């Protein structure tokens, strides 16, 4: 388990901001920073010039986020009809999407087509066959699997065909009259070393070259997925060190005429969202001081269960005297614990606990367990 990062104390500006937000909007909150979101988007654009960015809506499916990224010029990775609805509500054309879920019901395919999403991802022949009734309307990407040890969340076990089977699938597809537009991969989320992307880019580029001989239509897309990491320990990520090898791999390996796209989720949204919760009650149980917050792992902190995340926490009070404490969530379940065995200064009811880097797979996977309405979402 990753070491939990905790920051004690806050600048006067920070304190004033958090207290003011809670005064205005109550607690708990998820605060989306427009500025930070745009900063992440622009950094990624700079680091990966020429790569079209398709925001993976699943990371934080929320209208204001879509609106901000839309205005910035992003495209969108959709994985369900519900996500397409979110785009349609804002008049964003399906032309600017790819549908990336490799396994789909027919109803899902039809809903996507109605929403104007016409590029689909598959990873096996049975799924390809489901697309055949629509073959004259669609383009297909084949998802290739690359297992990696350096990612926190492996996405190549559940999805993706082996690199060795791509040529055969391309042959089958063209015999069936479907057009394979390109390849896609997802090295896994929070992929901490660029090596995973670099190797996958190299291998996919080879395959694209090999396939050129048998594919009646040239491929035009290489989708390098998401997976770009963020720092969960208050340290600034070294973007230059991480993205340079990827940028160079694209330059070196990707054949001419192939448009490179990416599906970042976490990288764009994680740093742009801050959770504010407050102490609702406390108890001394044995050697431990328990604090009960108004948000927990069934709410905004759900990523600690589903996303294996360990969010950096900030306590506004920087008193040197600390004791071993437990931060628990508001539900009745004993699994609802945000942090154990951490050192905390004495907290009082109403004191704020700040969770940082809380944009990716937080709200997205939160539940209504105990009929709690969860954090209010605000945009600053």
């Amino acid at each position, binding site marked *: 388990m990753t070491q939990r990062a905790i920051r004690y104390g806050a600048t006067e500006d920070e304190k004033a901001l958090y207290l003011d937000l809670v005064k205005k909007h109550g607690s708990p909150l998820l605060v989306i920073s427009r500025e930070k979101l745009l900063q992440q988007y622009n950094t990624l654009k700079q680091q990966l010039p020429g790569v079209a960015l398709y925001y993976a809506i699943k990371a934080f499916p929320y209208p204001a986020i879509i609106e901000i990224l839309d205005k910035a010029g992003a495209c969108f990775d959709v994985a369900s009809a519900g996500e397409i609805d979110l785009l*349609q*509500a804002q*008049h964003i*054309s*399906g*032309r600017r999407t790819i549908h990336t879920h490799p396994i789909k019901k027919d109803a899902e395919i*039809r809903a996507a*087509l*109605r*929403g*104007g*999403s*016409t*590029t689909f991802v598959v990873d096996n022949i049975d799924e390809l066959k489901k697309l055949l*009734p*629509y*073959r*004259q*309307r*669609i*383009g297909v990407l084949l998802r290739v699997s690359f297992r990696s040890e350096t990612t926190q969340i492996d996405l190549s076990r559940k999805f993706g065909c082996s690199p060795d089977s791509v040529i055969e699938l391309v042959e089958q597809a063209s015999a069936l009259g479907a*057009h394979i*537009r390109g390849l896609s991969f997802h090295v896994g989320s929070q992929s901490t070393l660029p090596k995973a992307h670099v190797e996958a880019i190299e291998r996919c580029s080879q395959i694209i070259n090999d396939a050129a001989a048998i594919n009646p239509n040239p491929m035009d897309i290489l989708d390098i997925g998401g997976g770009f990491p963020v720092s969960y320990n208050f340290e600034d990520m070294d973007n230059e060190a991480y993205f340079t090898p990827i940028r160079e791999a694209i330059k070196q390996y990707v054949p001419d005429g192939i448009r490179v796209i990416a599906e970042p989720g976490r990288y764009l949204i994680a740093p742009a969202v801050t959770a504010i919760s407050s102490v609702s009650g406390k108890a001394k149980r044995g050697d431990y001081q328990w604090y009960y917050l108004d948000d927990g792992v069934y709410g905004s902190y759900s990523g600690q269960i589903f996303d294996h995340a360990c969010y950096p926490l900030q306590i506004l009070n920087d008193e040197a005297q600390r004791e071993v404490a437990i931060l628990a969530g508001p539900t009745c379940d004993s699994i609802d614990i945000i942090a154990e065995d951490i050192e905390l200064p004495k907290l009082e009811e109403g004191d704020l606990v700040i969770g940082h880097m809380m944009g990716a797979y937080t709200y997205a996977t939160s539940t209504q367990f105990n009929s709690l309405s969860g954090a209010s979402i605000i945009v600053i």
Partner: protein
Amino acid sequence: MSDFFTETLYDPLGQSFRIDKLYYEQKTEHQHLMIFHNAFLGRVMTLDGVVQTTERDEFIYHEMMAHVPMFAHGNAKKVLIIGGGDGGMLREALRHKNVEQVTMVEIDGAVIEMSKQWLPNHSQGAFDDPRANIVIADGMDFVRETEMRFDVIISDSTDPIGPGEVLFSNDFYAQCKRILNPGGVMVTQNGVPFFQVDEVRNTAIRMSASFSDQTFYSAAVPTYYGGIMTFAWGSDESTLRTIDLDSLQQRYQQAGIETRYYTPEIHRASFALPRYVDIAIAEAKA
């Protein structure tokens, strides 16, 4: 600078229309709808990213879908239109003076209201004609349940990806046959075969399960780009399809209907299909 509407029908290509003025936009429970003005086409209605109808070329579609079956029949008194919420088909069907009643079944009443307001040139008052019988219902439910009988049935549906999927099913064709009078005919819009030849194949198989005489006729509607579109034809009376030019001319003159696309000659010629369509049909029925 004006916005453009780009169709999302096909992944590798798509036509764009300049939106000179947006009149109406709505996302209903069933569909996402837009009506806007384009300098060349006049008012344009789109549904789920696909052009449905434009003021400039709707006459081709509506004339060909209403007059071909009605003149072939020669004495249609009761006509059923499935869909057609914009009122253009109703308008053309009602131009036949001998028609006693045109029943139009539209799933979404809001489409009719919106069309009356924003596409008045389509219906041109047809909704107020005493011979118009407007029913707000699911077309499939209607054909399954109705006790009424019809001489001509016209299915003016969206494409089969949309909510109109059931209107391309075996069951729909079988129910239409059930409610057709002897000597009756049904026609359906069937897409642009250059892009969607599978739709021709599917309909050929499904419709011929219910009708002894099944074929297609065609017309080129510019904003349904890709060349000709097909209309499916199903009847148990094969003489309707092979009716001679003289009879058609006589009926056309007697009707006194002023058309802009339809002529008896076009009517006859429209049953001649390009070879790739013929082959697809033959293969499907083999």
